[in-house]
């Protein structure tokens, strides 16, 4: 479709839209009278649930810290707590919407630039999250076993099946996630480059 044809199709669309019963007076009034809960910048339940799970796990390990024997095992436990505390902070920081942009004053280019930069930041933070998740997988295993008084060597097929399968599944998932992140990163970087031309 050439631009001239697009203009014709757009004119048709505009005519149709005018005939539609959209944005009724009632809906607009409700929105204006603050009976509408803005979705932008709101925290999602999934984010809160993830944060709760991580902090609950960090609390669990902290409470049982004294039961963990051995210096290196305690170091691993502290590392687990640190990772569990950092993960939600990184996630929450990375999913925040376009902040610092005054929607009624900023130009479209300014908003896109902020959007693209935040998207890039988000993708990078998510990569760190994936890496931290992998660290957590290996670090928390001996810590949890120690808290429950279990000897890792006594768990059947732990090193031969469970850990390799767990790691393989995690890495496959991480590969899939990161591949899509890399595409978004490239798109955003090329968008920024194009804007600055």
């Amino acid at each position, binding site marked *: *479709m*050439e*631009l001239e*044809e*697009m*203009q*014709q*199709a*757009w004119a*048709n*669309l*505009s005519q*149709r*839209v*005018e*005939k*539609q*019963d*959209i*944005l009724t*007076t009632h*809906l*607009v*009034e409700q*929105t*204006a*009278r603050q009976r*509408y809960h*803005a*979705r*932008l*910048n709101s925290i999602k339940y999934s984010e809160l649930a993830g944060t709760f799970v991580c902090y609950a796990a960090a609390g669990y390990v902290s409470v049982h810290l004294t039961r963990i024997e051995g210096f290196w095992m305690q170091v691993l436990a502290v590392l687990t707590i640190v990772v569990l505390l950092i993960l939600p902070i990184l996630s929450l920081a990375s*999913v925040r*919407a*376009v902040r610092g*942009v005054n*929607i*009624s004053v*900023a*130009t*479209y*280019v*300014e*908003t*896109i630039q902020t*959007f693209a930069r*935040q*998207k890039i930041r988000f993708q990078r933070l998510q990569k760190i999250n994936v890496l931290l998740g992998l660290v957590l997988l290996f670090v928390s295993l001996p810590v949890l076993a120690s808290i429950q008084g279990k000897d890792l060597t006594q768990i059947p097929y732990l090193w031969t099946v469970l850990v390799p399968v767990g790691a393989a599944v995690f890495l496959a998932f991480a590969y899939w996630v990161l591949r899509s992140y890399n595409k*978004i990163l490239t*798109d*955003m970087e*090329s*968008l920024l480059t*194009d*804007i600055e031309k």
Partner: protein
Amino acid sequence: MDLHQQFTRVIQENKGLIFKVSAMYTNSADDRNDLQQEIVYQLWKSYESFKQESKLSTWMYRVALNTAIAYLNQTKRRVSTIPLELDTDRFVESYDKTEEEQIQQLYAQIQSLHLLDRGIILLFLEGKKYEEIAVIVGITPSNVGTRISRIKEKLRTQLVKQPA
């Protein structure tokens, strides 16, 4: 007329603008409706502080486009999107298959453009002058002209790649 009534009238007079911007940045009727309401909310939030230093439509396009970008970020939509499904049932009276296909193709082509070009072409199709597009977008009028020529070229290339 109080502020609420004034605002409602402004929205009613410009509902097409809000619908079209919402449709260009979403992939489903549900998302489009959400974005429409979000735009109305953002417009209302800054309505009182709108000092008429710019044209009403300039301000409305700016808020609508910026909200669409913020919404895109919030909902983690991919930047390149699939063609939008139109509510054909809402157009029963004036249903025309060829016209419908043309509009679908129009959506697909606009959505294949990157965010900046998408905003520019939307304003161009709305019949905005280069100067007003420049004010809304935040680039110079000559840059608007250059970009529109480039978009034309891009659309032609798409046409060669995907013959109808």
